[in-house]
């Protein structure tokens, strides 16, 4: 939120793209922990790039069993460390990032508990006294590759870090539509 906004140049699917708008369900009023990290889904981004310049190494069609189609998109966003405050933000460790465990088997997906990224990465978490296996759904090895490519192209002067044209609003929340089950016979 401090360096990323509309117009930020990014690595997108193997080429250069841009942040163009807040993403779907962009929400900045979710509760944050003592390190300032949101504890559930929060700010999201809408990005744009030229598909014809992208590579299947960083853009692949995916299908999740019992969920549906998805897309694996390789994204890298440079964060310029301009002051001590930003330096503190980029040094947040996995132990300091929390997220919420949701039960997708129940309507309304109720929360079952909170875990840290460090716990998730260990391969096992404890939820309500039970030990549960964990696995990632995004690729850390690809993320590191993208970070390295981005670093090299910045150093080579091929990728220019841009200042956003407009920062994102910081006080937004969602007004979701109420689901109405229609179709009943009178």
């Amino acid at each position, binding site marked *: 939120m401090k360096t990323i906004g509309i117009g930020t140049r990014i690595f997108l699917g193997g080429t250069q793209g841009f942040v163009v708008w807040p993403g779907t369900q962009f929400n900045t009023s979710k509760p944050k922990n003592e390190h300032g990290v949101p504890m559930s889904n929060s700010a999201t981004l809408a990005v744009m790039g030229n598909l014809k310049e992208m590579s299947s190494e960083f853009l692949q069609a*995916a*299908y999740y069993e019992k969920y549906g189609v998805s897309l694996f998109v390789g994204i890298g966003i440079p964060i310029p460390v301009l002051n001590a405050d930003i330096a503190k933000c980029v040094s947040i460790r996995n132990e300091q990032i929390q997220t919420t465990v949701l039960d997708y088997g129940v309507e309304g997906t109720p929360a079952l508990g909170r875990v840290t990224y460090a716990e998730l990465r260990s391969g096992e978490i404890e939820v309500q006294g039970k030990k549960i296996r964990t696995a990632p759904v995004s690729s850390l*090895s690809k993320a590191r590759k993208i970070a390295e490519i981005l670093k090299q192209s910045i150093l080579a002067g091929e990728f220019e870090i841009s200042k956003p044209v407009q920062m994102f609003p910081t006080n937004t929340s969602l007004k979701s539509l109420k689901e109405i089950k229609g179709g009943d016979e009178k």
Partner: protein
Amino acid sequence: MQKKRYVLKFPPQSGDQPFSYHLVKDFDIRINILRAEVWPGKTGSLVLELEGTTTNLKNGIAYLEENQVSCEPLNKKITWDHVRCISCGNCTAVCFAGALQLDPGKWELQFDPEKCIVCELCVPACPLNLFKIDFRE
């Protein structure tokens, strides 16, 4: 002593023959059943870990083949398209045998065919559909 994993296929009419008993009794092979599918009147399949001396294993396999049971080493049955794999790690959640794991340094997917028991859970779990397992005919 040697330990090897095989996929055995039985002809439909062989359901009443105690092949695994003979492997133990006649060939002194220690067997561990990793997976079994036996249906009356259909081709049955069995994933076995066989442990024994080289000679005994060879003779045991020959005995099975004489009785129209096909034996193929397990590792020939599994293919994984590692070029397209992005190491997302989704498959590691369902691999209870521990054959699919992310190496903790580079976070790249490692596949150990020796541990695989051909449970096939990784096939639908992979969002990129990169696992091909030829277990049934």
